């Protein structure tokens, strides 16, 4: 049993000191479970978004179908993934795959709209200069879509940090575990420290990842600072 002093909700520091190693491990797995799907999701969403932009007729069906994916409840997706992928029920890959689906759902539209945001006269000029489609994408469309895509990545990443926590209910260890621990320890009376610690770490992680995306986008778009500085 924990001491009475240790049961104060704000004694998360005491709790952290006692379970340091375990909590850091949870934090680490929470981080990669959140980030990996964003990376894979972006790689998948890029070609799909490009198709939706390239062929105008394809935009409505692609965007609505991928958008619909977002409405599947996350718990359901976690549970059916092993069947779809042929993985073990406790394989973290299930979580990564499920969250990748959400990221794709979110980013396809973002990518398509980001590519569409390139001014028409810039596209005309680039085409007239003899850029191939691939060069156009790499040298003009993608660089100019960075601000829009980065905004989408921020939403997807923060959403993933909170969605990952749900995976604790199916036994994948990450910060969500702290909520379950807190819940179990509260049977004989409220015991908040692990729960508060979990919330604080989740928020801190989301903020950190968000900042990282903002910073990298800023590094990739020096021309934008010039414009806003005027």
């Amino acid at each position, binding site marked *: 049993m924990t001491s009475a002093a240790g049961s104060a909700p704000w004694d998360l520091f005491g709790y952290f000191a006692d379970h340091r190693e375990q909590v850091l491990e949870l934090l680490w797995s929470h981080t990669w479970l959140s980030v990996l799907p964003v990376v894979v999701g972006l790689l998948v969403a890029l070609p799909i978004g490009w198709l939706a932009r390239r062929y105008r007729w394809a935009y409505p069906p692609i965007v609505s179908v991928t958008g619909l994916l977002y409405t599947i409840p996350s718990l359901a997706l976690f549970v059916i993934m092993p069947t779809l992928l042929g993985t073990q029920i406790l394989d973290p890959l299930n979580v990564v795959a499920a969250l990748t689906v959400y990221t794709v759902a979110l980013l396809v539209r973002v990518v398509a709209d980001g590519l569409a945001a390139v001014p028409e*006269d*810039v596209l005309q000029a680039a085409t*007239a*200069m003899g*850029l191939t489609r691939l060069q156009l994408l790499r040298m*003009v469309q993608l660089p*100019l879509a960075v601000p829009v895509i980065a905004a989408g990545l921020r939403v997807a990443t923060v959403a993933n940090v909170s969605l990952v926590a749900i995976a604790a209910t199916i036994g994948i260890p990450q910060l969500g575990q702290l909520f379950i621990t807190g819940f179990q320890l509260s049977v004989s009376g409220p015991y908040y420290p692990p729960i508060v610690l979990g919330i604080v770490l989740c928020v801190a992680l989301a903020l950190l990842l968000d900042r990282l995306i903002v910073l990298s986008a800023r590094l990739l778009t020096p*021309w934008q600072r*010039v414009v806003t500085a005027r």
Partner: protein
Amino acid sequence: MIRFDAVSKEYPGGTVAVDELSLTAPSGTITVLVGPSGCGKTTSLRMVNRMIEPTSGTITIDDRDITSVSATELRRGIGYVIQHAGLFPHRTVVDNVATVPMLTGTGRRQARSRAVELLERVGLPAAFADRYPAQLSGGQQQRVGVARALAADPPVMLMDEPFSAVDPVVRDQLQQEFLRLQQELGKTIVFVTHDIDEAIRLGDTIAVLAVGGRLAQVATPAALLATPADPFVAGFVGRDRGYRALAFMSAEVALAAEPAVALGSPLARARDVAVDDWVLVVDENDRPQGWLHLPAHPAGGPGPAPGEVGPALLNLGGTLAPVGGTLREALDAALSSPSGRGIVVDDAGRLVGSVSAATVLDHVHDTAADTPARGGA
């Protein structure tokens, strides 16, 4: 040489934008496509670099069918300039200009140093090289657009209303520099505009298109002004075309000697040489400085030397016509001169003689009587 041979373009939906266009744009000259909005100018232009495929007909550049090479390769040999320049907002000015040379294998360092040269050539200081397009004015962006189109030294340039989006003063300057540049480079240029004045100023050949993509007339600027082929062209060319046509006739009029006094001469001397109370005042190098109206300054003016011809006494009105210039310049000099005598100067700006409006008009009258009306080419 760019040749359109019975080229038509019908858009899906049935709009005929270009109708059986046959036209030759001679090498090393500027051919202007002019016409009202929607007459198919842009469509015609874009068929040359295959941004638009014709429905029928063929286009050749130097007798080679443009479909005989890939669109990408074709485009790299054709400079293209559009209304708002279409610069890449995420690339610096120098990188914008160096884009095509770098695509075609020129090293980065060499492409950039050539880009800076080109920027200076189109009138932009090298200090602009590292700016982003958003940090330039519209006129400056347009200069970069021209430099970028010239970067790969293409023999052919297509320009779609490149100077329409800038104010009249900047446009005038850009047109002037464009003509100077073309004199050095001798590119084969197809230039689209809806502004007949621009067409007349820039074109060696002008093709007037009517709505529906019909070619109404092809002619030199002078012939277009003198003999419009039909009422549409006459209407499009505009009302004061008679006056504008003077810009295409050289002023081979006899000049009268114009007596002048130098700045600092005694007023008494000015009184001796004045004609109709007006006397031209020149500097020590014989360059006209202005007119002195003697009745207005019976005793000279204020200042340290009241008995002398000083700068404060001068009327600065009156444009100067260059010797060997056009009738329009000569007439303008005469009409704007306070004495009614238009001053003609040589290349160094020195006084050569004067001409009156009556002399110019007599000359126009004689020329018109000598020259039978010329038809469109």
